């Protein structure tokens, strides 16, 4: 790890990931409302992401820390043309940790190189969002009782979805079986399939998945954005293949859980919400524990 920052999920070894998940479980069991007494955390959101920001701020508040920052770059010095480096160097003086979201890829890595305090990446463009990956893994571990030998279905936009890319990499050491369900235009990119090949991980690609649901331990849904299709007729024809409806879940394994990084638009029908397989709202709660764990770990307060 570079000066204790967390920029990419690959900055953590598998052992470190497992340790952070344990710490998250500890926070869930036993809140530590004074762990961050006297500490200040900056949340610098160079692009808006209300949910992620609130999740981080909730995590800091639950440990007794204080939060400073901005959620709209238009009102900050950024709009006056200050470089990222200058902003980060200045803010480093004001806090013990920087949580940062930025539309440009690689911005967090660069920030971690110029900051004098640890940086946690809360999303840098389409590149990385490691705390999302950790909360996804925490949710899998918590609902399945293990990380090993999980049958994971990933559904929707597998080409552009950074959450699925990171999760594929992070789960690879745990002998998973992946089922990639997508329109042929939105398939998992070759670089990730090659990665899985190199690790000897099994994966299958499908264009539909209704009949396969009984095999799944976890169904990870993602949003298919209309704008990804140049041919809107194509979109209209296939969009329903990637919508999960309550009627499709009748033969699912009792322990099967449905995850979604949210926001959901229509890829999970509203009638699924009350089904016991639905887990996406609890998953968001797990995000707070996972972020508490990351913050306390990079600050060296938990080892």
């Amino acid at each position, binding site marked *: 790890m570079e000066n204790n920052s967390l920029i*990419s999920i690959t900055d953590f070894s598998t052992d470190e990931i497992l340790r952070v998940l344990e710490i998250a479980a500890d926070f869930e069991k036993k809140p530590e409302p004074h762990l961050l007494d006297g500490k200040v955390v900056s949340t610098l959101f160079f692009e808006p992401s209300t949910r992620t920001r609130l999740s981080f701020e909730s995590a800091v508040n639950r440990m007794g820390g204080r939060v400073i920052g901005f959620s709209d770059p238009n009102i900050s010095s950024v709009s006056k043309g200050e*470089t*990222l*480096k200058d902003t980060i160097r200045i803010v480093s003086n004001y806090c013990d940790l920087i949580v940062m979201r*930025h*539309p*440009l*890829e*690689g*911005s967090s*890595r*660069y920030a971690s190189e110029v900051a004098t305090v640890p940086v946690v990446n809360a999303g*840098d*463009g*389409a*590149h990385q969002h490691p705390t999302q990956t950790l909360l996804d893994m925490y949710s899998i571990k918590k609902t399945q009782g293990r990380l090993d030998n999980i049958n994971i279905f990933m559904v929707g936009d597998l080409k552009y979805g950074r959450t699925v890319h990171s999760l594929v990499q992070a789960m690879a050491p745990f002998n998973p079986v992946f089922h990639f369900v997508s329109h042929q235009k939105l398939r998992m990119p070759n670089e990730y399939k090659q990665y899985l090949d190199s690790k000897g991980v099994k994966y299958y690609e499908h264009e539909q998945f209704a009949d396969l649901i009984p095999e799944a331990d976890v169904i990870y849904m993602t949003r298919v954005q209309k704008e990804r299709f140049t041919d809107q007729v194509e979109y209209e024809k296939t969009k329903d293949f990637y919508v999960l409806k309550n009627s499709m879940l009748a033969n699912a394994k009792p322990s099967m859980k449905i995850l979604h990084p949210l926001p959901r638009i229509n890829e999970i029908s509203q009638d699924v919400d009350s089904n016991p397989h639905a887990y996406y709202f609890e998953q968001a709660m797990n995000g707070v524990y996972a972020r508490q764990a990351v913050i306390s770990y990079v600050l060296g307060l938990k080892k």
Partner: protein
Amino acid sequence: MSNKKELIVSAIKDGTVIDHIPAKDLFKVIKILDFEHMPNQVTFGGNLESKSMGKKAIIKVADKFFADSEINKIALIAPTANLNIIRNYEVIDKKPVQLPDSVVGLCKCINPKCITNSEPMQTKFEVVKDDSVSLRCHYCGKITDSEHFTLL
């Protein structure tokens, strides 16, 4: 050196001869090595005949012995190049250029959404050696292949 007829570019007493540069890449090599700001005597020849390459280019730099880290940058553009170290008109060492493991501040990242294309900062790449040479951005992780190398 016996075959004197090849000496279209005049010999140097001491220094470095960079030979077997692909003819089309001569000026890129000149740019990478920043001859514009070098006080040494530099002579170069372009589109010279070469048995092995068809056309090649050559650069002779008097009284200059490059550090590996300095000269190996050209391997990205001119992997076929080799170096002849000259002392008193004699070739005392001959070696090919070696691909470096990383390059800093040489090329532009191909990803328009990469932070390096917005901030006043140096680019940094890991050199990926597969069938062809490409660069993986240290910041955004995207690959810039050799066809898209843009020198800064």
